[in-house]
């Protein structure tokens, strides 16, 4: 009986594998002999001319790795293949977690994709395997903002298609229940603390049941922005040494601690994650980056929430509002064969001259478009996160693709202070030294001094 079952199982496995084992990506590619397709040239400065033959019209399939938004990229790939019937773009989804292990390994060995999504935090990990864009710098600069920060020896390997930054998300029902309306949206941190107090609720036994503001788990995202607001740079003048052990960081840490301990608008023990607490309707306000918007929509569709710009130290225009990080355009493999690279270069041009595709991606992640033609797009302007970011976008600082250890360690430092009651200054000093040691082998150079208003900032500790 067992033998039979085993045999049946084996046979079933082989049968199923036989049925489904084929390669779904196989397509019947045609030869393309018509260079002049009569199609419109796309783009203002970065242009895509479809009226040329790709790979001399010979069939070719190239791979394109993504970690998310597969359907959007597949749509772009399909429309590209419609122009070039001899080209198939095989979009392959890879898990984000280990994408950065597999991709460099595959690129190094020449088995990787011809093009792929890239994240600037992995810059050092990947830059040696990238091919520079075959697009004139002037054209890129004319169409996109923030290109300068990506120029390496006169070339770019990727740029930003959008900028992600922080905003305050607030629960509209709690807002209304506290008797607040749109005119109460705070502009300064003092006003913010006052609003947060109104939104905070305790039960009869004095236990916190609704936090006015919750930053648990996410001080790491906030602290650099708070420093920038006060004009404090992250890095020393050598552009490489982290200089977060300064009085401004200590002051901002203390400000956050005081919000909980002095003003009582929240508690370090009120849930381990600000995002989840907000989604569960336990916290009235959180500071989050753009990605959180869609997460709220998909995970907590019943919560009515709004978004407003990050408050500032005073009503005056600050030196900077916050930090931003870019979402990168595609990387092109420097180890792929020539024909695949030709297709990849054309695809990148197509992607970057395609406003609709760029807009779709920006809206998906709630990121402010770097493409100048999209800044005044109606859909972009109507998006709550972008509406909050738009007036301040010129005063957002990009410190460059710094290693993730900085944020992780900053969170650790803060938790050591609040949970282990360690001294702010001492913990900052030790933590900063640890990060500096950790970054010893890194080639990272900050771009924060390229910020338009960098001269107004404090460049020393």
């Amino acid at each position, binding site marked *: 009986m*067992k033998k039979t*079952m*085993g045999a049946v*199982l*084996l046979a*079933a*496995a*082989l049968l*199923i*594998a036989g*049925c*489904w*084992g*084929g*390669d*779904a*990506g196989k397509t019947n590619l045609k030869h393309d002999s018509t260079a002049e397709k009569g199609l419109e040239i796309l783009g203002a400065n970065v242009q895509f001319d479809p009226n040329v033959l790709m790979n001399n019209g010979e069939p070719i399939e190239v*791979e394109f790795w993504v*970690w*998310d938004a597969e359907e959007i990229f597949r749509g772009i790939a399909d429309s590209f293949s419609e122009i070039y019937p001899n080209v198939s773009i*095989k979009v*392959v*989804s890879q*898990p*984000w*977690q*280990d994408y950065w*292990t*597999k991709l460099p*390994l*595959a690129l190094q*060995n020449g*088995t990787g994709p011809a093009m792929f999504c890239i994240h600037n935090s992995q810059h050092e990990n990947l830059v040696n395997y990238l091919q520079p864009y075959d697009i004139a710098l002037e054209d890129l600069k004319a169409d996109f903002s923030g290109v300068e920060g990506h120029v390496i020896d006169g070339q770019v390997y990727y740029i930003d298609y959008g900028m992600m930054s922080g905003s305050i998300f607030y629960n509209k029902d709690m807002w209304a229940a506290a008797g607040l309306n749109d005119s109460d949206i705070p502009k300064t941190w003092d006003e913010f603390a006052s609003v947060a107090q109104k939104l905070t609720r305790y039960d009869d036994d004095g236990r916190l049941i609704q936090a006015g503001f919750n930053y648990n788990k996410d001080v790491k995202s906030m602290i650099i922005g708070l420093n920038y607001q006060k004009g404090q740079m992250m890095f020393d003048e050598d552009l490489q040494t982290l200089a977060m052990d300064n009085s401004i960081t200590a002051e901002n840490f203390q400000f956050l601690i005081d919000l909980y301990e002095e003003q009582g608008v929240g508690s370090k023990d009120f*849930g381990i994650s600000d995002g*989840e*607490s907000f*989604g*569960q309707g*336990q916290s009235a306000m959180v500071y989050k980056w753009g*990605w*959180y918007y869609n*997460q709220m929509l*998909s*995970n*907590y*569709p*019943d919560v009515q929430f709004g978004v407003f710009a990050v408050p500032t130290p005073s009503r005056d225009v600050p030196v900077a509002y916050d930090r931003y990080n870019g979402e990168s355009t595609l990387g092109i493999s420097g180890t792929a064969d020539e024909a695949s690279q030709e297709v990849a270069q054309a695809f990148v041009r197509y992607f970057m001259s395609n406003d609709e595709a760029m807009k779709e991606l920006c809206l998906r992640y709630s990121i402010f478009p770097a493409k100048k033609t999209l800044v005044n797009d109606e859909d972009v302007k109507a998006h709550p996160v972008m509406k909050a970011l738009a007036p301040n976008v010129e005063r957002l600082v990009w410190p460059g693709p710094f290693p993730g250890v900085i944020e992780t360690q900053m969170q650790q430092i803060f938790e050591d202070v609040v949970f282990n009651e360690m001294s702010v200054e001492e913990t900052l000093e030790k933590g900063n030294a640890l990060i500096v040691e950790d970054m010893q082998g890194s080639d990272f150079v900050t771009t924060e001094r390229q910020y338009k208003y960098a001269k107004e900032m404090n460049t020393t500790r």
Partner: protein
Amino acid sequence: MKKQKLVSFLIHLCLIFMVMMTIAPFVWMLLSSFKTNAEINAIHPTLWPQNFTFDNYLKVQTQFHFMRYFANSLFVTVLITVLVGYTSTLGGFVLEKGRFRGRKLVFGLVLGTMMIPWFVTIIPKYSLMLKIGWIDMYSALVIPAAVSGFGIFMMKQSLTSLPDAMLQAARIDGASEWYVLHRIVFPMSRNAIASIVIFQFLWSWEDYLWPFLVMNSEGKQVLAVGLRLFNGRYSTDYGGLFAATAISIIPVVLIYIIFQKQFIDGLSSSSVKG
């Protein structure tokens, strides 16, 4: 008598507690696969779904190629398990019943393979696969896994209980070594083989990093890799992940149910020498 009953009762109570501790996460996962993400993430979690939903199971197939990954996993795992079952018995038989110079050295080398952390071998193994052109081929998954040091060790231990006299008798009657292996050793080692089959099936089924690294085509990828697609950059789709995991463990549970008795007997026979 009364004391004995009390002891027995306490032992059973402990066992029931341990069983509950062991299966509680599984039951929670299974029930959570019928919850919405908001309910799964709730700060005050519930065991039973408050808003029962099948959406997670429906999106498992629509969001990624679940059935393809499932079939690929089944194919690769079954193949590896069959091969390991065979090579382990063969290796165990040769090392336990064979008499040749260097036998202990070979066995030492086999044991040595178990002492090297698996992740240390990943890069050299990858380079090797690349050199022989097996990247993105099932052979890269199956061939390196076809011989198991643990399996050979376990079978060697198990075969110590098989009397040499029985094998000698067969040989005297004219049985070849091939015949002895297939007609005597295999049937008499069913329990130990079943244990190896269960272990190996489970390991191959849940193996993630190696298939992830060597398989590039989406159509050839295995389920363990597919399940990671639920872990996004910013958040995890727990509902989808739990639903896919609940389905994915069915083959493992089936294998265990089929070989349950032999598994326990096999483990006992391998752990006792002589």
